């Protein structure tokens, strides 16, 4: 039986003459390529071959979108040949003419990474943040005059050859305020190591919000390298990994340990109170009073904000505390205070752990 429609063919060489190409790196793990083609078609069913060689293309992701004029052309079927690197679209056309089509597919071995550079001012209360994107192309494909879409509205038109990497600066914000805080986190120490002298990790804390001159877009996860200007000389002062921060989220950057503040924790007192015994003389219930002392000395030349997080028992009552504290939850409390240069600060608090069971 002879088909009633004419068969036409547009060979691949015509398809390579793409009008435009977009490399969409919004989703860095699955870059999407959009090729714009103007395809001449004849009236009837037109088989359009698409094949590839030497590129890492995700075959299942390939699709054809007919853009204009869509009422004249219709994608009837897609035929996958036994050749793994080829497929054929059968397009029905009610007249001879040109069709604008977009071939969309995912390409493997293209990567986009986000890194940040942070320049800290002399007073150490503001950051200049620069986001850079690094692109790796090992896909096997060259992109000439391609539109590179880098997320959050950043677009650049560039040549990008296979094997070539590129680095772009895409987002800069000046004078981002931050809070610098040294943290003693008692949760990270065992009972035995808590009393040892320890160096204190220091964090820059900020939020991805307008208050911090940010908050216009999410911050992608990536490495941040910090530099500090000193008499117009920049010094690299460390790096950390920023986690993805949506608008409104907080960002905490670890910048090293404070070596000028020496902190010693000691348990100054521990005694039982309100002991209740049973008829056999065994203890049924009692309270345990503890006095915890932190001795903090600042040998440095700058005021340090120190946060102390202390793990607590399940049921407790504070009897006295030399400094204000905040209850994080029933098992953790937090003190925060400033220590002037060359000074010593004593934090002492007494609490009762209530209703302990058993004992002798």
């Amino acid at each position, binding site marked *: 039986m002879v088909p009633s429609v004419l068969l036409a063919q547009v060979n691949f060489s015509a398809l390579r003459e793409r009008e435009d190409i977009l490399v969409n790196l919004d989703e860095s793990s699955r870059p999407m390529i959009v090729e714009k083609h103007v395809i001449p078609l004849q009236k009837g069913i037109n088989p359009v071959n698409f094949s590839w060689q030497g590129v*890492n293309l995700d075959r299942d992701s390939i699709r054809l979108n007919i853009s204009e004029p869509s009422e004249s052309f219709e994608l009837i079927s897609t035929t996958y040949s036994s050749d793994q690197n080829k497929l054929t679209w059968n397009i029905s056309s009610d007249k001879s003419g040109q069709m604008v089509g977009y071939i969309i597919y995912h390409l*493997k*071995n*293209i*990567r986009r990474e986000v*890194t940040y*550079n942070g320049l800290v001012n002399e007073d*150490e209360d503001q950051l200049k943040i620069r986001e850079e994107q*690094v692109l*790796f192309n*090992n*896909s096997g494909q060259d992109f000439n005059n391609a539109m590179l879409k880098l997320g959050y509205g950043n677009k*650049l038109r560039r040549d990008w*050859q*296979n*094997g*070539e*990497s*590129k*680095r*772009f*600066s895409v987002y800069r914000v000046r004078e981002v305020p931050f809070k610098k805080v040294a943290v003693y986190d008692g949760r990270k120490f065992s009972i035995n190591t808590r*009393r040892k002298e320890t160096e204190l990790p*220091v964090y820059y804390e900020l939020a991805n919000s307008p208050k911090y001159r940010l908050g216009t877009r999410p911050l992608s996860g990536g*490495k941040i*390298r910090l530099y*500090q200007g*000193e008499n117009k*000389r*920049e*010094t*690299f*002062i*460390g*790096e*950390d*990994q920023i986690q993805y921060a949506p608008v409104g989220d907080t960002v905490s950057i670890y*910048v*090293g340990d*404070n*070596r*000028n503040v*020496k902190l010693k924790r*000691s*348990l*100054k*007192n*521990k*005694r*039982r109170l309100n*002991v209740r*015994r049973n008829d*056999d*003389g065994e203890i049924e219930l009692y309270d345990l009073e503890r*006095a915890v002392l932190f001795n903090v000395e600042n*040998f*440095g*030349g*700058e005021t340090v904000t120190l946060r102390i997080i202390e793990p607590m028992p399940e049921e407790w009552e504070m009897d006295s505390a030399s400094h204000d504290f905040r209850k994080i939850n029933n098992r953790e409390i937090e003190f925060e205070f400033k220590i002037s240069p*060359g000074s010593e600060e004593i934090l002492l608090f007494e609490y009762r752990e209530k209703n302990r069971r058993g004992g002798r």
Partner: protein
Amino acid sequence: MMKMINKVCLFVILFFALTLPLDARVDLSLPARLDSVELTVYEAADLTYVRESRSLTLAKGINRLYFDWNAAEVDPTSVQLRVVGSEDGIIKKEISYPAGTNSVAIWELEAKKSTAIKVESAYFMTGLDWRAIYRGRLNAAENELDLRGEIEIANNSKLQFKNTKINLLMGQVNLLDELSAVIRNWEEKRRRGTPARRNQVGSDRSKMMYSARAMMAPEEEPAAKVETSQRAEYQLLSVSGSHNLRPGTRKKINFVRDKFESKNIYRVGQNGPADKVVRYFSFKNEPADGKEAVALPAGKIYLSRQTKDGEYLRLGENRMKFTSLGEKAEIPLGVAEDVRVKKSIMNRERLNYSFDAENRVDGWLERVDLETEVNNFRRLPAEVEVYQRLSAPAWEILRSSHPYEKVDHNRIKTKLNLNPRQNTTAYQLIEYRHGTRRD
């Protein structure tokens, strides 16, 4: 103009055959003049931050600055370029890393007109490190320390640095990966598009640096003025003058020569066995002659003492921790043989028993007479600190022959100052409350 033997070069590509692949290009390049080099060598990592200042003239239009670090181990992700001064009429476009090589970066700058500019390029490299070594001499009375500190800088890279300003960074900066791992990872990503396994900081590479270095005799240099910039997390030592660092060599720079008041402290029972006396050598980082102090980086200290006949006797060596300005340094010198402490329980008495309803003992008091005999066999005075752990949670010191200090809930410290060759004995009467007597 400074010069390096191996290539870390910046060129302005004036004519660049863009359409040809990199290995077949025809180009004409002019080297940019190197005006100055400044190194910041990090203490706790195989990391050096290099900053170079260069002069060049941009042509109108697109200029490609070609940066090549053949033979050096440079982190490509760290390479930065900054135009010094006004950037008017200059648009920084991007950095490209061409295919087929892992040691080239190309900056693209667009200039609205031909203009002479200064640029500062900066990058991280491996191969340089430094350490501090101290030699301390005590006077015969052991109350004054003459401390000399040297900094030894080793250049294990293949680069030669001439007339270079050197900064040393004290402190452990946070690094997510060792620099050599970052470089390998970059090459792997460019080759395959997938990251290599991460190699965390602290692997053996940095530790191997000293054993693997070329053991040429270090070049001694006269004392350099060292300026310290004090930050809480790091201190920057800026060595005065310009220095030459040849590949495979070490250089020593004297940076501290000061006198400090010092003393010996003999401790027993603080850490380790209760009957061993450990000698600590201590001094406060405040020079006795009123000179301006510098923070002392961590390093090995060799201690000796002047004898009666003017010779020096080796006392010992140990590692000294980083010491801030005004902070007290304490260096353990091992078990002391010439100061002895003997603790004895001279009497133990249990009393005030209480009984429960079935006449079983449920509480009592215990009184312990503790005698601590201290012998100073030295010809010098000795400050002795005796730590005593209390064996039960409820206790009270009823009597003490010497003042004592509560260290924490179950330890006290008694301080004794002994004259030369003096023996003394401290007594303490301790009462423990057991059972219901604790209530």
